[in-house]
């Protein structure tokens, strides 16, 4: 919208984005595993300026009991933002945005988990954004994916997630804050890399079918890289543990 305050004049200068990236270039992602000793599995994912910590508890008793499902696990997926994670303080606690994101993340992770193996129990996944610079839900999914693996939850595959979108009329990968706020469209996506099944898809903004195709391709390709990063981070953790025990 033309009347937004603080919009930069251009989001692309000389073919480069304001943070110096190329259009199909992802921000640097760093994955740390086992950052919360109390948790059964945990992780911290950094995607450029976005930082998310995640812990997984379970399988454990379902509380309250009304959530109990005798056929599959109850996946309790909570996404939140720390009050100090954004330019303007956010009120702590759940809100409509975080409620919805928690739900779509649960839907994105469930296809990867052997849910029926944990019938009658609960798996709790808590994701807290401690510093936000766009792409927080996708960072949270990557964090949850490795934290679930770290917790030893049996999975069909890891879940990789990245957003792509459109800003200044150009299609691009992994929007950062200015592009997200002042761009034309944002499309987060999550995929099971082995089967290429899409487990999360959201889009807001205006896109043609051809553009949706290009963005899907761009994100799927980036997810292949994320898959390698997730596996490498998991391998590294367990190699260090093995070395320490020898």
């Amino acid at each position: 919208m033309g009347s937004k305050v603080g919009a930069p004049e251009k989001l692309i200068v000389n073919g480069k984005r304001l943070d110096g990236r190329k259009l199909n270039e992802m921000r640097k992602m760093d994955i740390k595993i086992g950052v919360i000793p109390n948790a059964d599995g945990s992780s911290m994912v950094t995607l450029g300026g976005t930082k998310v910590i995640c812990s997984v508890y379970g399988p454990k008793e379902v509380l309250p009991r009304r959530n109990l499902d005798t056929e599959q696990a109850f996946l309790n997926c909570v996404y939140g933002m720390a009050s100090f994670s954004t330019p303007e303080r956010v009120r702590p606690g759940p809100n409509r945005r975080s409620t919805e994101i928690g739900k779509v993340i649960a839907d994105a992770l469930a296809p990867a988990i052997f849910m029926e193996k944990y019938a009658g129990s609960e798996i709790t996944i808590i994701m807290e954004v401690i510093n936000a610079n766009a792409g927080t839900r996708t960072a949270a999914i990557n964090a949850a994916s490795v934290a679930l693996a770290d917790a030893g939850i049996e999975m069909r595959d890891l879940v990789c997630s990245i957003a792509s979108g459109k800003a200044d009329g150009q299609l691009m990968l992994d929007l950062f804050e200015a592009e997200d706020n002042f761009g034309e469209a944002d499309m987060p996506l999550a995929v099971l890399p082995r089967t290429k099944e899409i487990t999360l898809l959201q889009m807001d903004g205006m896109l043609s079918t051809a553009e949706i195709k290009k963005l899907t391709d761009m994100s799927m390709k980036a997810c292949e890289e994320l898959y390698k990063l997730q596996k490498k981070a998991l391998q590294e953790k367990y190699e260090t543990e093995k070395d320490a025990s020898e």
Partner: protein
Amino acid sequence: MAILKPYFTDLLTKDKREDGRKLFEYRDVVIETGAIERANGSARVKIGNTEVLVGVKLDVGTPFPDSPESGILMVNAELLPLASPHFEFGPPSKDAVELARVIDRGIRESHAVDLDKLCIKPKEKVWMVFVDIYPINDDGNLFDAGALGAIAALKTAILPKYDEDEEKVLHKELTKTKLPIQQIPILTTFAKLNGKIFVDTTMREEKEIDARLSIATIDDETTSAMQKGGVGTFTAKEILELTEKAAELAKKLRKLIPSK
């Protein structure tokens, strides 16, 4: 829980539906506007046995700091236990929040309501547009019913009088000014069960599906919002095919929205 899954799977593999519909066929859709006298705009939508009532109320308030010259749009869904034995009293459930937010994005992102025209005094006074969706009977596909109701109610909404000296809205005095509407976004929600894709689920079907994909389109070419729900998955190819299918189905539904 999933007792009916094999039954519906069996029907769908034969390209059949329990009620005799085709896979991409909607139940009868009826849209009636202006049912609520006190609302600034209202619509009653029936899709088969699913019935939704949507009311638009207008008020004046302070704009958001990042868009000081734009009006405010708020979409909310109230899933009253009145409409279904599956709804419960209490704060909005995850389903209610998702429903409202998916419908909201289809409207917001297409700039269906020209919010820039709803400024009274920059930084201080703008019109606030409240869209409240009340399901009356939930027999599946509240997404599409709610979205149809929302845009139909918005399309017919009329501004109340604003007293600039007193700085208050005279809710009982209506003007002749209509809410500025520049697009008619239509939401089409696809369901997937054991690899078969179809539209407009009944409640019996909805309880058994693996995944859902809602797509809001404004014309043949342009999509303004998408959202996947449910624990199943879609392939990239399916998503592109469904985007085109959504535009095709929306064309018929769009004709049902009153033109004035």
